[in-house]
């Protein structure tokens, strides 16, 4: 095999074609009998409204005002099939995202534009802008920083934090406003399944495009395609160290470029990825593999690494050497950011899960391995169980998992087919599923935004709250991803943060978001706390028994004694502030009291909504 150089432009087209083919090859509406698709919610005793609310609670980040009725009108099945297509144009979201220029960069552009590890300083020294001695002595840090900042500006370089800020902002905006909600939900699901984390410096800068190019376009495609694509992505190659894994060599040897090896370049086997790909991405820990399988799989994947990118250090040199070597020697594979380096590959015979990889193989061995893994019965069951946990409940019925597993196997790992089986199963509509999932902090925050039509100008402060509640997105260190179970999210500290989030959110105390509660009620102020509870309770907690909630809360909010005490406390404060005595100050006091009352009503409204968001019912979905 000679080198397969594929230019970026061509690559994009190729990927585009692949996605297109995937869409048309499985297209549910083309299938005979698809019109018979009928979700069995009636048999479960659910009204279309309740069923729609349940469906939306699982396959969106929260129902927007009026959405439940729309879905009932459209038909639950039709809505779901449309969401599986994920073809809504999302024009307004695109407009919102235009402010974030980093979202459209390639990995190479990111590497060049967002230097890390002090590269900007080395560049400034090389360009004679900075004096090396002054850097070493760090005499005047402030002046030094000014020079570096100016240098970065002049060269069009930007700090990495800016990249991550933009990336996280777009995720929040997509989750809140994308019309292709199911695709966005599945993007979160698969990202967490194939978790990578920004806490690992080497992989952080590649995470934005990992989600954009690898996960999102395949979130409703075939599992094998997802698996192979994640394996070849720089984010995963760096996160689980496979980029460095190579056939063991003598440490005294020179490297393939002919240079003596430095500590950093020492070649050898690293089995981190090989282990996690079996344990976490495919078979599951009880999926029937041994330590020997892990080591052998690691050997199969030696040489799977990242193509040198960027215009710094000796990257160009490295690229030229690869080009020269590959024109003479077979086995190299270069696709986009991925590089298979045959010189780092272990050519001996390997055996993984009883399958023999004969000596002398190359890149195709890895593909074969992923084919075996993605078609292993343990994988089908493991993936389907995880999907069932995400969408049905934390302990899904075996019967449900078995049905989904069967579909997974029969459809060659088609994620859309598996989801259809899930939603067509009575288990999905059973009391064991309805309102049984606990929202993650991200889900809590985004569902608050969606339920109340909240406008987000700047998602940063909202993101900080999500982190404080226990979900620092893109930063879960372990390859497991966040555990998807209520017990992980709910504990004393996090629950309190959730209540405080509700109060801050409704009270307009989170920067960058605008909550306009009155607009949801035709600009009318609710007449009483009970009325407010009814109006906003319906929006936020459509599935819960509003009457019961009202019973629990309204006595407190409507207690005449409480109202009296509140206004008494307020007026005594005003009178004392204005100095009671003459009629003029009394008149002023009464004006002030009216203003105070309006303010009080707004506070009351925000408080009712804040309590609703912090209530146990809103933590469920």
């Amino acid at each position: 095999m000679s080198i397969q150089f594929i230019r970026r432009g061509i690559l994009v087209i190729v990927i585009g074609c692949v996605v297109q083919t995937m869409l048309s090859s499985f297209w549910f509406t083309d299938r005979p009998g698809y019109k018979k698709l009928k979700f069995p919610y009636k048999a479960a005793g659910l009204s279309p409204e309740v069923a729609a609310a349940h469906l939306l609670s699982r396959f969106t980040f929260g129902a927007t005002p009026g959405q439940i009725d729309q879905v009932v009108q459209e038909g639950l099945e039709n809505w779901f099939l449309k969401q599986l297509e994920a073809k809504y144009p999302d024009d307004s979201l695109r407009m919102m995202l235009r402010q974030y220029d980093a979202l459209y960069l390639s990995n190479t552009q990111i590497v060049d534009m967002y230097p890390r590890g002090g590269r900007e300083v080395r560049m400034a020294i090389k360009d004679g802008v900075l004096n090396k001695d002054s850097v070493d002595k760090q005499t005047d840090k402030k002046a030094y920083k000014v020079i570096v900042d100016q240098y970065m500006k002049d060269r069009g370089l930007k700090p990495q934090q800016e990249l991550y800020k933009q990336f996280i902002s777009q995720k929040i905006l997509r989750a809140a406003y994308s019309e292709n909600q199911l695709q966005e939900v599945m993007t979160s699901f698969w990202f967490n399944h194939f978790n990578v984390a920004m806490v690992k410096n080497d992989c952080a800068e590649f995470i934005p495009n990992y989600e954009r190019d690898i996960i999102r376009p395949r979130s409703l495609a075939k599992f094998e395609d997802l698996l192979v694509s994640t394996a070849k992505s720089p984010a995963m190659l760096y996160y689980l160290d496979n980029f460095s894994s190579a056939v063991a060599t003598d440490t005294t040897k020179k490297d393939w470029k002919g240079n003596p090896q430095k500590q950093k370049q020492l070649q050898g086997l690293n089995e981190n990825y090989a282990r996690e790909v079996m344990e976490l991405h495919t078979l599951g820990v009880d999926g029937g593999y041994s330590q020997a399988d892990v080591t052998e799989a690691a050997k199969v994947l030696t040489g799977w690494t990242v193509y040198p990118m960027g215009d710094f250090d000796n990257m160009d040199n490295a690229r030229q050497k690869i080009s020269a070597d590959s024109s003479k020697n077979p086995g190299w594979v270069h696709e986009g950011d991925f590089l298979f380096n045959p010189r780092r590959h272990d050519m001996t015979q390997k055996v993984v899960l009883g399958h023999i990889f004969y000596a002398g193989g190359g890149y195709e061995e890895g593909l074969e391995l992923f084919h075996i893994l993605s078609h292993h019965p343990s994988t089908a069951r493991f993936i389907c169980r995880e999907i069932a946990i995400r969408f049905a409940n934390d302990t899904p019925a075996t019967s449900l998992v078995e049905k989904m597993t069967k579909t997974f196997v029969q459809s060659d790992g088609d994620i859309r087919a598996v989801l259809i089986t899930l939603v067509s199963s009575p288990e999905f509509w059973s009391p064991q599923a309805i309102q049984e999932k606990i929202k993650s902090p991200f889900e809590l925050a985004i569902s608050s935004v969606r339920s109340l039509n909240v406008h987000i100008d700047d998602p940063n402060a909202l993101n900080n709250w999500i982190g404080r509640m226990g979900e620092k997105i893109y930063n879960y260190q372990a390859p497991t991803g966040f555990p998807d179970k209520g017990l992980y999210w709910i504990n004393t500290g996090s629950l309190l943060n959730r209540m405080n989030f509700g109060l801050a959110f409704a009270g307009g105390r989170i920067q960058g978001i605008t909550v306009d509660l009155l607009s949801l009620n035709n600009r009318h102020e609710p007449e009483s706390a009970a009325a407010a509870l009814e109006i906003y309770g319906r929006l936020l907690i459509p599935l819960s028994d509003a009457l019961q909630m009202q019973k629990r809360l309204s006595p407190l909010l409507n207690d005449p004694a409480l109202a009296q005490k509140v206004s008494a406390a307020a007026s005594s404060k005003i009178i004392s502030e204005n100095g009671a005595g003459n009629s003029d100050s009394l008149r002023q006091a009464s004006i002030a009291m009216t203003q105070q009352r309006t303010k009080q009503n707004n506070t009351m409204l925000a408080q009712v909504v804040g309590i609703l968001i912090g209530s146990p019912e809103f933590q469920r979905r």
Partner: protein
Amino acid sequence: MATRRGFIKGSGLALIGVGLAGGIPAFAMKAALWKKKIGPYKKTQTLVCIFQRGAMDGLMAVTPFTDNNLMVARPNLFMTAAAGLAGGNAPLIDLDGRFGLHPMFKGFEPLFRDGRLAIVHGIGSPNNTRSHFDAQDYMESGTPFNKGTSSGWLNRAAGLIPSEQKTPFQAVSLTSALPRSFYGDTPCIAISNLQDFALQLRGNPMSIKSASTSFEDLYDQTTPGLLQQAGKESFDAIKLLKQSDIKNYQPANQAVYPSTALGNALKQIAQLIKMDVGLEVAFAEHGGWDTHFNQGTATGIFANNAADLSNSITAFWTDLGSYQDEVVVMTMTEFGRTVHQNGTGGTDHGRASCNFILGNKVRGGKVHGNVLALAVENLEEGRDLAVTTDFRSVFSEVADNHLGINDDHVLFPDWAGSRIGVMKKPD
């Protein structure tokens, strides 16, 4: 669950609320009569556990430096105890002529010489999994061959402590999420920052009161289960913490905590201990030990982690002052790392590691356990430091001795091994 309405409401409003919703339930009446005093509690014995996530390389932390096999297996990672041979780097701290402490653990040396700090080497799990997730899961559940165990060993420990006082701060994890060790039936809490531990309400006092009462009622009356239980625990804890000045805490004895996640966690544990809120089991985490790549030696990734761990623990110990008698600190990690260095300047997942135990009741000044010569025939699966001490042996001895637990069948079901004498015999 509904009958466990532990706290009497501060305000009568809540009871009116319940009353209007359909008569005061009998349990609420009962609760109203049972007025419990909120702290201060009697001084308690506290066990502080620190989980080093990622698997610490025990052979670098406490190196059997006289073993030639190790030198051969780790041409780039082996460190020496001889200053003259360390090439300008800090050498290992020679503990007993055989084991050398990594130089960045230098804060531990006086505690070791003083007989307060013990090391157990060759400690690990009987289950030979090399998956972080699994090994942590097994170690934290305390049942190395049973994935189905729903509770964590520290939660069971908290439940077994024979104390008459029950407080919301009996078991506290200084983490944003509840660790696996704390899963279970005994109420435990996770707090990442004590200062945030209050309802952040605005407005006049009356509306603040009504909001907080509303939350409390909603959680109290929701379907029994996770949310109801966590809600109750939250409100109990808020009330207790309100009674102290957390913001302006000054460590005692000029202790200086590193401004790291671990340093902050231990500082807050010290605060809780000194507040006498009844803390008996505390938990903190320390990440970054998964050194597959460029592990370093006297400096580098491992060294930085070691410095953080040792500086945080010694600051904590200094800060405790007269409370030292009541506290034992124990570190743990899911497994050790390969004897051989890998091809990328690091080490891969292995088997046994070592741990540190600090306290006045500890038989310190000694490297306990059994580390065989690292010849290939002595290694597990020919590659890893063999597990010669079951972690349950050490954990149970420490917990039993320090916390007065005497039911190991509950603490570590299906374990019946013997002790290695890491704690002094109780008086």
